[in-house]
């Protein structure tokens, strides 16, 4: 609905929009700035913007104190692994729901979403016991499974809304041509559904990356991702604002950069069928 505006109004709108955007972004910016200050400079009053003592020491210290690459790699494996596994299970389901809808499809979707409403803390001990029996504690595969199940309803729902937007006639035409079910998916659906699948994937990688309950409860060392890395830097002794900021920046920057680079795909897909 973008429309042409008078130059003056455009200036005002631009200013307003930038102010709002900078306000929203400011906490992240302030955290990044703090991460480059010395501890003393980080808590100086009045706050220092340009006059601060800049240093890279915080990053060096955080890097030296923990095995960042391992946490990082675990985060990547868990986030990507759970998303891919989720897509594998969800794509056929969403496809079937979108193109062969039954009377209960809507209810089924709602039921799936409702499984997400169980508070994680309530099932913490039962799940811990199950994991222990199955030998899945502190394993990446265990976390991949848990996060996959947690996000599966969201994946199914997102995909369902995309697939529904693919016109049924195209399928009919393909069937007329005698395409098999497999061909139908590969040659007709996939190209049309790919943008939707891509943005579903992105959103779920972000959700899995940011999960900070099960990832801490169910891991110790081998499978611990960046959320556990952060837990080792929160509330230590003494002045820690700059070090906490540095560790925080290291934990969120990878996903922030991924998000920014792929924001077009993410945004295009982030509709959940909201657009009709």
């Amino acid at each position, binding site marked *: 609905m973008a429309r042409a505006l008078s130059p003056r109004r455009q200036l005002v709108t631009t200013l307003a929009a930038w102010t709002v955007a900078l306000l929203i972004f400011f906490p992240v910016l302030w955290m990044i700035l703090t991460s480059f200050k010395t501890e003393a400079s980080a808590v100086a009053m009045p706050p220092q913007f340009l006059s601060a003592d800049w240093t890279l020491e915080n990053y060096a210290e955080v890097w030296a*104190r923990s095995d960042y690459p391992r946490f990082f790699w675990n985060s990547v494996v868990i986030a990507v692994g759970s998303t891919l596994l989720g897509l594998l299970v969800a794509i056929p389901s969403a496809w079937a729901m979108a193109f062969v809808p039954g009377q209960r499809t809507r209810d089924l979707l709602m039921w799936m979403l409702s499984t997400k409403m169980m508070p994680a803390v309530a099932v913490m*001990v039962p799940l*811990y016991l199950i994991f222990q029996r199955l030998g899945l504690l502190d394993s990446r595969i265990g976390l991949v499974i848990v996060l996959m199940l947690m996000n599966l309803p969201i994946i199914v729902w997102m995909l369902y809304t995309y697939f529904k937007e693919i016109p049924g006639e195209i399928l009919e035409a393909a069937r007329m041509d005698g395409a098999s079910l497999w061909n139908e998916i590969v040659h007709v659906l996939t190209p049309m559904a790919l943008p939707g699948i891509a943005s579903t994937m992105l959103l779920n990688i972000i959700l899995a990356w940011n999960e900070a309950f099960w990832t801490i409860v169910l891991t110790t*060392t*081998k499978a611990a991702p960046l959320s556990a890395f952060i837990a080792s830097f929160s*509330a230590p*002794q*003494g002045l820690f604002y700059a070090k906490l900021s540095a560790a925080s920046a290291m934990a969120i920057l990878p996903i922030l950069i991924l998000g920014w680079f792929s924001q077009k795909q993410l945004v295009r897909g982030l509709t959940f069928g909201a657009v009709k």
Partner: protein
Amino acid sequence: MTISLGALLGATASLALSGAAMAQTTITVATVNNGDMVRMQGLMDDFNAKHPDIKVEWVTLEENVLRQNVTTDIATGGGQYDVITIGTYEVPIWGKQGWLESLNDLPADYDVDDLLPAIRGGLTVDGTLYASPFYGESSMVMYRTDLMEAAGMTMPEAPTWADIEKAAAAMTNKDAGIYGVCLRGKAGWGENTAFITAMSNSFGARWFDENWVPQFDQPEWKATIDFYLNLMNNYGPPGASNNGFNENLTLFQQGKCGMWIDATVAASFVTNPKDSTVADKVGFALAPDNGLGKRGNWLWAWSLAIPASSDAKDAAKTFINWATNKDYLALVASKEGWANVPPGTRTSLYENPEYQKVPFAKMTLESINSADPNNPTVKPVPYVGVQFVAIPEFQGIGTTVGEIFSAALAGQKTADQALAEAQAVVTEEMKASGYIQ
């Protein structure tokens, strides 16, 4: 032919790899992210050189999260850790449950008789040592010598609570952002409950009488809470209900507190010029009393223990012996100076003339020696523990009571309301747990 040769090479390589892995035992060590523990991780080269066959994996977590994970693991027999960091509250309870491995058979060079008796006693159940102290602490008064001087006052070596109040009033300068006294207000059995419980001992209060009947309705508790709230409301920093050990340490290091009554282990942090802006202006005194024969100081030791579910107990013992041996203290001293040695565990450390030069050494030792977990209160009690009650239920009720006191500090409740609520909650829990009818 080439293919099978490649396969053969691959097989040999993987065999060699698995051979190397077999020879090396991996142990998982869970620790808190406090200064001394982090320092130990920086000194691992020494351990690795002495014990190349043991590989140590660290799990470093914030105290609350660590406790949550370790407790869940040990109570369900999870077996995820080989060495865990626990305190004097957990050791007697877990030892009795059979969840911990006995440390009576540590090698002779460990020199168990060198441990401070008060600390050793807290980690021993029925003659069995279940954990080895990494550092021990009591609590004491840390104060700003420059501010006291400016106010024309001197801090007695063994102050009373009245002295503390006077000093707090004299040092408070809210316009300059200086608050006379910083005390714990953040809810938690290891946070404000620990402080207030130790404080209540010096007011003659106790958690339970000999029959496990809660005592929060008694005048001693009323006097404790009234004094605490009054002191904090008049001379404490704003927002104190969210301040725990770490928050207060930061404030003190920034020069915003006149006094801070807290763990003796903090002495080395507030006098370290690298982190503290007031490093050369800190004096120490014993925790205050009210002339009733008990001081408001506690006893705690962060200690290393081995869960019974560990599958690398020998390697774990080797590690514990390295980390809590006299040699480790010497190692830290050679690298970081005597002031940064983990304090409060060994008699020999306090007999060392080098260590006696450290300004807070004497006061730390006296504080530790004056705390008696087996006889913590003025009136008799059925429990062990100075700033806690060594029963499994205490984590829960201690935290709930801490929340109630924290709410009172935030001004949501009066002292009377808080105490009545604490009495009701603790009574109900003690009934539910079968201590009282």
